[in-house]
């Protein structure tokens, strides 16, 4: 019970701190960008193909933001404490290191979930008179992007325990994997692409043809791919990343000063 209380405390602390960082402000801006553009172009409504715009934003843009957001926020899950050297305060408390890892990851993910949900909900609200976004499309998109973000963030947080250059390595491999794998149908390597599964989840949750067409065109979803299959794939990837992170953090030492002393 005490451990859970401490984890909640660490998660809340991480959430409070991540909201104040510059990278979060940048990410909030990225999340709000479609909303800002929509507000800007709304007066010229008839010229804008809203259905196309909404599909593109809902399907593509937020998925990309999830990946970029995870690059910065995920790598910072432990990176903030390592670089700030405040990790020494945490590692000298009677709490297992893995509890910090999980609690901080959840705190950061929660911060992103709030940003993405708020942005999409406002987008739907602003567009309500011109193009009604069905609730299930909205929730499908929120679910898919948050799910994808959680998985990306767990991978990046774990990667940060392995290397100080997690953002660079994550970007390099992420871009290569996602650009290459997500286009290969389910029978092939696309099973390893987070983005691919985000698309499947969004498509299946929203259940609309437009989203389905866009998904099929962009990431090559096969008709037989199911919601449960993709949720399972993401859950397994998340579990593997977290387990690996937990194993790494258990043996993690605090940073050694430049002049060994």
């Amino acid at each position, binding site marked *: 019970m*005490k451990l859970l*209380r*401490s984890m909640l*405390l*660490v998660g809340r*602390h991480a959430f409070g*701190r991540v909201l*104040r960082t510059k990278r979060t402000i940048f990410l909030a801006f990225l999340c709000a960008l479609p909303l800002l553009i929509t507000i800007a172009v709304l007066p010229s409504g008839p010229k804008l193909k809203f259905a196309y715009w909404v599909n593109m934003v809902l399907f593509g843009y937020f998925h990309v933001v999830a990946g970029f957001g995870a690059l910065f926020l995920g790598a910072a899950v432990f990176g903030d404490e390592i670089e*700030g*050297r*405040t990790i*020494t*305060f*945490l*590692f*000298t*408390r*009677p*709490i*297992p*290191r893995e509890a910090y890892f999980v609690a901080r990851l959840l705190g950061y993910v929660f911060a992103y979930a709030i940003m993405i949900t708020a942005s999409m909900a406002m987008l739907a609200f602003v567009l309500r008179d011109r193009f009604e976004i069905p609730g299930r499309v909205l929730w499908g998109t929120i679910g898919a992007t948050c799910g994808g973000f959680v998985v990306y963030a767990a991978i990046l947080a774990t990667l940060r325990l392995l290397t100080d250059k997690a953002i660079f390595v994550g970007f390099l491999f992420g871009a290569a994997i996602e650009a290459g794998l997500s286009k290969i149908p389910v029978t092939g390597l696309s099973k390893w692409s987070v983005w691919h599964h985000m698309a499947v989840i969004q498509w299946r949750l929203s259940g609309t043809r437009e989203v389905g067409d866009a998904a099929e065109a962009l990431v090559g979803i096969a008709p037989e791919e199911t919601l449960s299959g993709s949720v399972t794939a993401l859950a397994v990837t998340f579990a593997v990343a977290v387990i690996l992170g937990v194993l790494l953090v258990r*043996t993690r*030492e*605090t940073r*050694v*000063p430049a*002049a*060994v*002393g």
Partner: protein
Amino acid sequence: MIATFERVAKWYGHVVGLVDAHVEVGTGVTGLLGPNGAGKSTFLKLLTGQLRPSMGTVRIFEKNPFTTPSILRRIGFLPEPEAFYESQTGRQFVTYLTRLHGFSAGEARRRADDVIERVGLAEAARRPIRTYSKGMRQRIKLAQAMAHDPEVLVLDEPLTGMDPVGRRQTIDVIRELGENGATVIVSSHILHEVEAMTEQLILLYEGRVRAWGTRSEIRSVLDDVPHRIRVGTPRPRELARLLVDSEHLVAVRMDGNSLVIETRNPEAFYDHLPAVVLDEGIPIESVEAEDVGIEAIFEYLVA
């Protein structure tokens, strides 16, 4: 013993942090002394479970601190680096870290207030840490280390950046903790600071424990280095003539109104001196061992 190091070594790649350290630490204040880069921080991080030894075993309360986080409930640590959650107030900082020891919010706040008062930061407790001076930062670090009433307090260079009043107060707090039965391990590269806090020492140099024990114990085992004793007398020349034949004397030198004696057997000298001066009626104003100070011991050890 509270803590033991058994043949402990720690390497950072090719860089040596600590080599073959074999030390036992008991209650009271122990000074960890050595120049920058001697391995003090490595020693303290090993002791508090932040680092895993490359070789050997570290035990505190009979447990391995790296693999047994629960033992950290009994330990308080003041780290040397300037690292804070800058936007937090001093009170929030101490409360948060105290809560991680399992205290409720109310209890943690009460403890934070008490300990902040004790380190003399009550007036600044509600200000963000980013507005604190270096000395205040040291004090708030000390507060977070003490708030949960640990049995062992590990302090890495706690006096760095403090003004003279702050130093005095912190030294008093450390001494008081030691006198009340706590175990305090405090590192410093400034000899007189350690000397003001404790007799019990661990001397580190280039990653090696050169000596450990009380100052006089360490000095006494330096057999190959003669002990220097200063005898104040108005008749130094006469006293020198009387002492020069003693077999345990290595050297005798006059320095104004005093005689500086070097001997390999100070006990024998102290026994011999009264007899000589009483027989000849030579007045003695003072007798002082000159090289039991940490500085002298350290010079001998690293020479």
